[in-house]
């Protein structure tokens, strides 16, 4: 299998008045062509910053990014902004969480859709408009011709997200970043959008990075999963292996806290007590130690490394579930 993106020792920090905020710490990831990888974590775990940094979308004087990101044989970190931008659309594309704020409110859907087609693929106005209609059909928007002339505010959340997806896949990208693509949507629409993404991945032979806080969404839509906590990858495995046997106490706690339809009614839900550590001062030891139910003395003083068991399941824990490393 070929690797489409390889991230090595990626660190991102923000210079804040209180000190350096380390949002992403030493992340290594390989994304194979044609696969889908899930990035799971709570708000503030660094999953969005990680995916934006990987695409080179974080700019600004207060951002420090180190490490390497190699996309399709080219090193993004060494490229100029202009060069990185040229990979957008045809190479990498992103779907954002909130479809209302990501679309331009004062431009018609048709014009937003054809922009990429004209700039990236050099299509004529007429050809771009025809292709836009095909794209709307592809994402199952009824009456596509009429939709081209509408404004975002005239659409429901689910329809807007379909338009966003159509824009993202317009130039047939090889790698799609989907940042919480269904979090703002109803469960029924969420199921439809996830099904659409599965279809499109097959049809366009596209790799996908699915960023989400919901392990339930990851289960049916990814080949492998990286769980992030406090800016680090704390567990990594194929989706099947991960759900068959979690090693990291954090992942287990995250799974247990999901409300489920087969939960006995009237029974208390299990929770992860406390919250993420202060990102400016995380202290020594394991970042999850203060909230971990299996915590021991060593966890507070020594930071655990990311280690692998014989079948390639990675975890960052001194005392993993399921016994010795």
């Amino acid at each position: 299998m070929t690797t489409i993106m390889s991230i090595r020792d990626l660190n991102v920090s923000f210079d804040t008045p209180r000190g350096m905020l380390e949002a992403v710490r030493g992340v290594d990831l390989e994304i194979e062509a044609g696969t889908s990888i899930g990035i799971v974590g709570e708000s503030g775990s660094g999953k969005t910053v990680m995916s934006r940094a990987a695409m080179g979308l974080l700019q600004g004087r207060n951002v420090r990014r180190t490490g390497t990101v190699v996309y399709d044989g080219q090193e993004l970190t060494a490229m100029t902004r202009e060069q990185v931008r040229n990979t957008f659309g045809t190479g990498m594309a992103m779907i954002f969480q909130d479809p209302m704020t990501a679309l331009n409110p004062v431009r018609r859907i048709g014009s937003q859709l054809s922009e990429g087609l004209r700039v990236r693929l050099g299509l004529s106005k007429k050809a771009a408009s025809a292709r836009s209609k095909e794209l709307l059909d592809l994402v199952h928007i009824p009456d596509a011709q009429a939709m081209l002339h509408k404004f975002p505010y005239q659409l429901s959340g689910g329809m807007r997200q379909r338009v966003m997806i159509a824009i993202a896949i317009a130039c047939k990208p090889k790698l799609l970043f989907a940042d919480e693509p269904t979090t703002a949507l109803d469960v029924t629409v969420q199921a439809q959008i996830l099904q659409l993404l599965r279809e499109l991945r097959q049809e366009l032979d596209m790799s996908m990075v699915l960023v989400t806080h919901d392990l339930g969404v990851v289960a049916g839509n990814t080949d492998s999963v990286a769980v992030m906590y406090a800016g680090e990858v704390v567990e990594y495995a194929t989706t099947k292996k991960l759900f068959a046997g979690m090693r990291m106490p954090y992942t287990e706690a995250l799974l247990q806290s999901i409300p489920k339809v087969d939960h006995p009614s009237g029974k208390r839900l299990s929770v992860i007590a406390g919250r993420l550590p202060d990102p400016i001062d995380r202290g020594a030891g394991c970042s999850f130690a203060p909230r971990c139910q299996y915590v021991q003395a060593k966890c507070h003083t020594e930071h655990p490394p990311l280690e692998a068991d014989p079948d390639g399941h990675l975890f960052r824990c001194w005392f993993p579930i399921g016994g010795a490393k």
Partner: protein
Amino acid sequence: MAGSGTAHMRNTTDVVLSVRDLVVEFRVGQGRVVKAVSGVSFDVCKGETLAIVGESGCGKTTLGKAVLQLPPPKSGEVVFEGTDLTQLPKENLRSARTSMQMIFQDPISSLDPRMTVSRLIEEPLEIWDRGNQQERAERINTLLNNVGLEPELVLSRRSYEFSGGQCQRISIARALALDPRMLICDEPVSALDVSIQAQILNLLQDMKDRYGLTMIFISHDLAVVKAVSNRVMVMYLGKVCEVAPPDVLYAKPAHHYTKALLDSVPIPDPTRQATVALLQGEPPSPMNPPSGCRFRTRCPAASALCVEQEPQLREVAPGQFVACHHPIL
């Protein structure tokens, strides 16, 4: 679904809230009318939690607000502890509202960013002249402790300094300040992370037990309401589809829409992925709802009868009421 009827109404003395044939419509110009809630009836007994579940646009939030007369419904009655709120003069309604409080979906924007936490919680106490200054301060401390916040650490801070979960705790403390007997929670956890959702759901359950509350819990996610509800009412396009206790509803949904909602919940297990056909499309416009059963345009079992006749709620199993001509039995 999507029918009317009152077969599920109970005739016991411990009914706290009883809503009959509630209709809420909004005029949106050019003679068009949004039929947000069309003839919904339900009741809630003392100490019970009623969950109202449905997609965006089904009228669940409008229904919750109409109970509080925000705005007053077009027709129908809302009887709370024996008083019909729709008939009350404005001033009496204002004081009646102190015993029914609401918690909103977006915890951050529902708190005034310029007010400190102590002001936020004190405001209702001051307006209704409850206790002297010292008693109020004590009350604020107790409330904050009860919702799991350290009073010394939070009292002088403002809402933007808190996370979504903490803001929701502050909203809960504020809602409880006047000792309400009923709490209406409108999607209280849908803006929160899964790990925080469970904390807030447990907290609401604790507060219900501690303050002896009766609750209406509005959500689009059936999985979320499973743990907290005693009775679930599924709504679609301004009408009631199904009413049942959660254990019955989740195990044997009788309405096709309830089943579709259940099938949409993601399963956190890659080996047990649903293979059923998903609900296609989106709900039709509430300005021009379908004739007969409002769900028929998306229903796999729709027949000619569904076009002509609106189904009425009827009991199909003990405690389970469904408005469908062709229920799943």
